[in-house]
C-alpha cells in the first residue's frame, strides 16, 4: 500500500490536470460572469444611430422583451457574428436592438450599409458610459431583457447558430409564455 502511494498521488494529479484541460475547452476563462442577470437593467437614454435627435430609454422599451446586441464597426468578432444575426435575427420573435459601442457614427452607418442591417433599431453609445453600467467589457455581447426591464440572459462573444438554438430561443419562448422564473 505505502509503496503505491506515489503512483496514486501521480494519478490523482493526472486526473486533476486532465479535468483542468477538459474544463478549459468548454469554458472561456476570460469570460466575466455578469452580476446583472436577474436584476433590473440599468436605466439608459441613448440616441438612435440613424436619428440622434430621437432617444430610446429603458422606460420606452418596457412592455415586451428585446435582445440588445453590443457591436462596433471596429470589432472583428462582430463581423463573424453578423451573418448569423442577418440569418436568424428575424426568426427570434423579439426586437433586435443594435448597441453601437464606442464607435464613430459614420463608421457604424457605413459598416451596416456594407454588411446589411439585422437590427430593428440601433442605439449609439459613443462615449461608452452607459456600457459600463451594463458591465460591457468588449464586443460583441448580448443581453436579453424582459418586458419588465429585467436582464434575463447575457451572452459574451459572437452568437453562433448553436448558441441561439440551445440557449437563446428556449429562453425567449419561456419569456413569451410568461413562465420565466
Amino acid at each position, binding site marked *: 500500500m505505502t509503496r503505491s502511494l506515489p503512483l496514486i498521488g501521480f494519478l490523482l494529479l493526472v486526473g486533476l490536470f486532465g479535468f483542468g484541460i477538459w474544463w478549459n475547452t468548454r469554458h472561456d476563462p476570460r469570460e466575466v460572469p455578469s452580476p446583472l442577470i436577474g436584476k433590473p437593467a440599468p436605466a439608459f437614454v441613448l440616441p438612435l444611430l440613424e436619428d440622434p435627435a430621437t432617444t430610446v430609454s429603458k422606460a420606452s422599451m418596457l412592455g415586451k422583451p428585446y435582445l440588445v446586441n453590443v457591436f462596433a464597426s471596429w470589432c472583428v468578432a462582430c463581423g463573424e457574428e453578423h451573418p448569423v444575426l442577418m440569418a436568424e435575427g428575424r426568426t427570434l420573435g423579439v426586437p433586435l436592438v443594435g448597441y453601437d459601442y464606442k464607435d464613430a457614427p459614420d463608421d457604424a452607418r457605413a459598416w451596416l450599409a456594407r454588411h446589411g442591417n439585422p437590427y430593428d433599431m440601433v442605439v449609439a453609445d459613443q462615449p461608452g458610459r452607459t456600457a*459600463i453600467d451594463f458591465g460591457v467589457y*468588449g464586443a460583441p455581447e448580448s443581453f436579453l431583457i424582459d418586458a419588465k426591464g429585467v436582464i434575463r440572459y447575457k451572452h459574451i462573444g459572437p452568437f453562433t447558430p448553436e448558441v441561439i438554438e440551445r440557449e437563446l430561443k428556449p429562453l425567449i419562448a419561456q419569456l413569451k409564455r410568461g413562465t420565466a422564473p
Partner: protein
Amino acid sequence: MSRALVRLLAVLLLAFAGLAAAQAIDPLPFKDQAQEVRFQNLTRQLRCLVCQNENLADSNADLARDLRHEVFGLMQQGKSDDEIKQYLVDRYSDFVLYDPPVKPSTWLLWFGPGLFLALGAAVVLVTIRKRGRATRIDSRLVDNATIEQGDDW
C-alpha cells in the same frame, strides 16, 4: 558596434520609453498629491477586464481608461474606496477585484492552500512516527544479529 550606432540605439530606446510612459499616464486633474496616491493605490487593486492580467492603473486598454475616469469621477463625488469597489463589482462582478472577497464560494481558494499544507504536514508526521518506531525495532533486531527491513520504505 560603432560608437555612432550605440548612440543612435540609445536615442531610439529613450524615445520609445518616453512614448510608453506617455501612453500609460493620462493626466487627471487631481486635487492634491494625497488624492493621486489614493487613486493609484485603488486602481492597482482593480483588474482590467480586457487584458485580464493587468490592473487598471497599468492598462492601456480603452475600457481601462474609461474605468479610470469613472473611478476618478466617483472620487470627486466623495465616494470611499469601498463604495467605488462596490460600484464596479455591481457591474463587473468580483472578477474586477484582484483580491477576491472571502465568502463560501471562495473558501476553497482562500483556505485550500492551508488545507493542503495541513494534509502534507499530517503525512510527514505519520511517516516520521512510523519510521521512528521501525528504527527502534530495527536496532533491537540488530542486537539480535538479525537484519530486517521496515515494511514502510
